[in-house]
């Protein structure tokens, strides 16, 4: 199981939890699992999210490996100027 930290706005879609646990070995599995378990998260996942894995921010990268003790943080999709 991987612990995923949600940002504040998403918590209401995940029964108020700041952190949820999902079975996932990659980002793709993690996003699919989150959307399936918490349908309220789906609109945001569709709009786009970034994922921080042990402090490093990824914008896409479905197949990035996640270890059970990895720190995973969901973030809004990043853009810049």
């Amino acid at each position, binding site marked *: 199981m991987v612990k995923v930290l949600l*940002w504040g*706005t998403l918590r209401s879609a995940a029964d108020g939890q700041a952190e949820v646990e999902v079975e996932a070995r990659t980002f793709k599995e993690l996003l699919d699992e989150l959307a399936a378990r918490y349908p309220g998260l789906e609109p945001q996942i569709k709009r786009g999210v970034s994922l921080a894995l042990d402090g490093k921010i990824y*914008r896409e990268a479905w197949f990035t490996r996640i270890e059970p003790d990895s720190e995973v943080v969901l*973030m*809004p999709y*990043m853009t810049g*100027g």
Partner: protein
Amino acid sequence: MALDAYQKREFKQVGTRPNRPDGVDKVTGRAMYGADVTAPGMLHAKVLRSPHAHARIRSIDTSAAEALPGVKAVVTSADFGVPEDAFLLDVQDHCMAREKALYDGHAVAAVAATSIAAAKAALKLIKVDYEVLPHVTDLDEAMKPGAPVVQAGRAFENVPAGMSENVTHHCEFGHGDLEAGFAKADHVIERSFKTAATHQGYIEPNACLASVTADGKADLWVCTQGQFFYRTLCSAILGMEASQLRVTASEIGGGFGGKTMVYMEPVALALSRKAGRPVKLVLTRDEVFRATGPTVSSSMDIKIGMTKDGRITAAQARLRYSGGAFHCGTVDFGAQAAFAAYDLDAVRSLGWNVMTNRPKESAYRAPGAPLSIYAVESVVDELCQHFGLDPLEVRLKNAADKGTKSSYGPTFDQIGLKATLEAAKAHPHYAAPLGPNQGRGLSCGFWFNFGGNTCVSLSVNTDGTVGVTEGNPDIGGSRASISLMAAEELGIPYDKIRTIVADTSSLGYNDVTDGSRVTFAVGLATIKAARDAIKKMCSRAAKIWGIDEDAVEWVDGAAVPAGPNAGKFPPMTLAEIAAVSAETGGPICGHHEVNADGAGVSFGVHLCDIEVDPETGATKVLRYTVFQDAGKAVHPSYVEGQMQGGAVQGIGWALNEEYIYGADGKLQNPGFLDYRIPVASDLPMIDTVILEIPNPGHPYGVRGVGETGIVPPLAAIANAVSRAVGVRMTELPMSPPKLQKALAEKG
């Protein structure tokens, strides 16, 4: 170790300051920018814009315009479809109003004619029947119940019930127990701030030349930060296949985020398709201000608690941003960045996006971050004043570091904030004496940076030179830094390499030049493309020598046998291998395609001294020093240039630049005379201190440097001004009338 990970090395060329490859073209007037290109049979286009801030378009009669001699095409929203995708529909609606004109200057029709004069005359013949609607341009007003609704039904599911329909988006970040944190504080300051919308202010107005032929093939020549993204948007809006639209990026006369979005390019294509001739569309400065850019405007409440020895115990930000008449997610970045420089146990940032009757926001260098950080750094400074503490010591005491749980969630890896603060503390600027009416301010700044989709193709020419083909418009000298990295990796001189920016048909997809990504991501792809070519060159040398290719390595620009067992052969240089490439297997090219991650966040600290004239309220910047972590400065002159340019844009934001709307909802200052960007006589030299704390995610340790520099100036200047006048300034810009008022109220 992964190939893209940082490896310590002695650089031979990276870190030097060679002449840029586009220099001679640019100093002789030969460089071709967006408006400098023409095509046979070309028509000229002009856009009709709404004089109203908010109006329903009942009907548009273009018949008289179409009948005018020389007019070849007129388009309105009726010439476009209605995309299903909400983002794309917003982009299209921004280019051409559909049911309502949503802001002063919103395009409602466009004409292509044989001369500019004919196109202008035709605009006057277009009859638009408007039903003028109540408007709202102030974001706090737009949030109130009963405010005019800019667009109905646009709120995301995350907006709490009961808010104005103009609120489209809500976000919240942070961790810890705020109440307990504030209870531990010896003093809590809560203040509200406002900042005006500003424009990127690029000197080159948006310009393009579109050519659509009868068989559906199209070319677009345009000044853009991202030819591939423009292709995506234009082909989707026009209903074309991407392969049939080739977009070529001209030289670009500044962008700063503002040329990451289409404004009139789909319109030029639609006109060309309708007229069957090439169409050139160049915006005037007035149009640039009214209908491109700008940044968000903001209204913010910050609450921070501190102990008397300078430890922050809790911090909260409530941020309201308006990205104009459309949905805008920039407040997400403001909320995430607000407290990034601090190691906090209890922190919360809340954000709301509010629609107003203003043009659609476009990115501007570190979008969203300068505002929230301005407000936070102002309150931190005021707390330092309250306790009589040194503002640099307080920042060092609370600074985020490796292992800090950041205010937006992830735990930081190696970051350069403390080193940057220490560099500022040790700099003579910090100890220099100040005179009367003078103040010193400082601020931390932060930006995420990112990598993104990148392709690089590197060809080894038979004469021993190398061509690098990349897909990101060069907005600040990136061709020089990319050539330097290729030269470093290949071991050949910089001047043997020429880097060019390819059109969309010549290379795979590249993300926009934004997010401070080019030197990082294109550099990374260039290094890997060079390694790919090196591998092929080693293989050719192995064949020539008749040894195993694993027994060959690349040293100083030549293949050499790896170790004594590989055999005794003299080094074979790149030029020697290239000269016989036809005989040894054909052309030698290296490639790399990646969606790069690991850009690494960036921190900076700015120090400034200012003097305020107590009579006029005019502010003079006396001294300014920028400290920033570049990871590795590939071409230090252009790194300094980014730091200096970012600082000065921030100085403009702090002191003078603002979108001023009248009660009629019209923009009052759409020109450089009244929208005042900094000029040479406003400024001192901008000193720079580059720190190099390697980014673990790049082979040379490079971090993006383009955006962070605009983040600290707003607060650095505000803190200096507030200390100079003895009043805490809470609104940007701090133009002379505002300072006069503050001084008068102080008495």
